[in-house]
């Protein structure tokens, strides 16, 4: 099976080559339409993996292949939500959301003439994450969690084929977080996007993902992989079943091993 996102024996060193690698011998393959979750100890290279897969960083060794092509420059089919929201403070939330459309084709060419349609799309997205009517606010008028949700919308607005989420729910309270799990779940089901989600929350990983990858401590590589076979669509109640708890327990054990091995 040829995967949609493939990393072969990738090693990456920050800062021009010298020094200890951030990830080493990292290999993984994620199929088209699959939902993958990456877990691992802090500083193990999860964000680095995201940057490598999207071409924001070039590996020192190994190859990265996305959609059948080797990645040599930032690829244009991704939507990315970073660990911190990174909104542009001189733009309103709505204008921040429209930013990808000003860059990615074919929207870029259509934006001016079809602005109303796109604004409507943006406002609908805002509504799904509970930010209805907040479009005219500046990012600094929003709370951290609200900014995080807006940044999630920004990663979705251009309907990317590949969605990279780097701890997007880190700054949120438990209720909003579960609400957004459902938003992402439905989105994945409806559009068939490939999703790679980095998270510290094992329940989140098990609830959302088809496969969970565990990374070792720095230099990071994949040390375990767990298929999650719960039927879709999954309901939040699932998270309170013993079967679910068992999978979470098993993963917790693997992470503990990864930390001890460090």
């Amino acid at each position, binding site marked *: 099976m040829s995967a949609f996102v493939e990393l072969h024996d990738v090693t990456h060193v920050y800062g021009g080559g010298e020094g200890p690698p951030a990830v080493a011998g990292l290999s993984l393959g994620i199929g088209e339409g699959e939902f993958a979750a990456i877990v691992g100890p802090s500083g193990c290279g999860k964000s680095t993996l995201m940057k490598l897969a999207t071409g*924001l960083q070039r590996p020192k060794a190994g190859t990265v292949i996305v959609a059948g092509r080797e990645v040599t420059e930032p690829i244009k089919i991704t939507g990315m939500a970073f660990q911190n929201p990174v909104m542009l403070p*001189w733009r309103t939330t709505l204008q921040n959301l429209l930013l990808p459309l000003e860059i990615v084709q074919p929207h870029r060419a259509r934006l001016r003439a079809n602005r109303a349609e796109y604004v409507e799309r943006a406002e609908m997205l805002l509504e799904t994450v509970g930010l209805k009517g907040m479009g005219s606010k500046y990012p600094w008028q929003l709370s951290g969690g609200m900014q995080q949700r807006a940044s999630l919308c920004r990663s979705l607005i251009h309907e990317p084929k590949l969605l990279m989420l780097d701890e997007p729910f880190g700054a949120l309270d438990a209720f909003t977080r579960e609400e957004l799990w459902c938003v992402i779940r439905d989105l994945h089901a409806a559009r068939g996007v490939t999703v790679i989600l980095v998270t510290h929350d094992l329940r989140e990983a098990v609830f959302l993902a088809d496969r969970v990858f565990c990374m070792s401590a720095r230099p990071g590589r994949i040390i375990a992989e767990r298929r999650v076979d719960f039927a879709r669509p999954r309901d939040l109640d699932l998270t309170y079943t013993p079967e679910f708890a068992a999978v979470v327990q098993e993963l917790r054990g693997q992470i503990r091993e990864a930390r001890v091995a460090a």
Partner: protein
Amino acid sequence: MTRASWLKLAPYLFTIGFFLLWEAACRVFAISAFILPPPSAIWAALVQYQKPLYTNAFHTLWMTSAGFGLAILFGLALGLLVGSSRLIYAGLNPLLVGFNSIPKVAVVPILVIWFGVGWLPPVLTAFVISFFPIVVNVATGLATIEPETEDVLKALGASRFDIMTKVGIPRSLPYFFGALKVSITLAYVGSVIGEQNASNLGIGNLITRASADFNVPLIFAALIVLAVLGVFLVAIVDIVEARMTGWAKRSQLGNA
């Protein structure tokens, strides 16, 4: 009265207080008007020489604006160029710092040799003196874009030009306006120096002539005119800045 209204009145009260103190000091210590004229004598000079003061101030304003305009144009262009390329930034940095350390007064004789006495030396002095803060600030604003912000755009496949227009330029605007505030007063210094040394017109030239006549009240009157014009120019820049980059101030207030 509320604290807010005191805050509003404070600039006027302090200014009036300053002049009252000055007047009182001159009278109490019986300081000769030849050393330090009291505000009342300066006021008399202002009234007496209002015509020459007016025409010369107008000329100085022109020289300053022309030099400042040139500085904005070239400063912005060079700043964008320097800030957008690490190579150019590294290469030009020592040159810029070196050129910036030359006291610009020392350049005036060269300008006189090149262009003779007239309007060009004051304009060019204003230009060279106010040019650098703009270049340096704009370049800094561009060169210090957070890598995360750049990543957001790069991950969408943005070109360098996109990054420059969507992030670089908006982000460097507060730096640019910060520089303008410094530059406008510097431009003003430049044009007055130019006028003192190489012009037949302008407040600078008026001061030179007044000091040859030992007309101290007129010198002070000219200085007051300069000060008022300076406040006026900075106020204009302030207003423009507040319109263009309100987000920078408000976002700081919001974080505080």
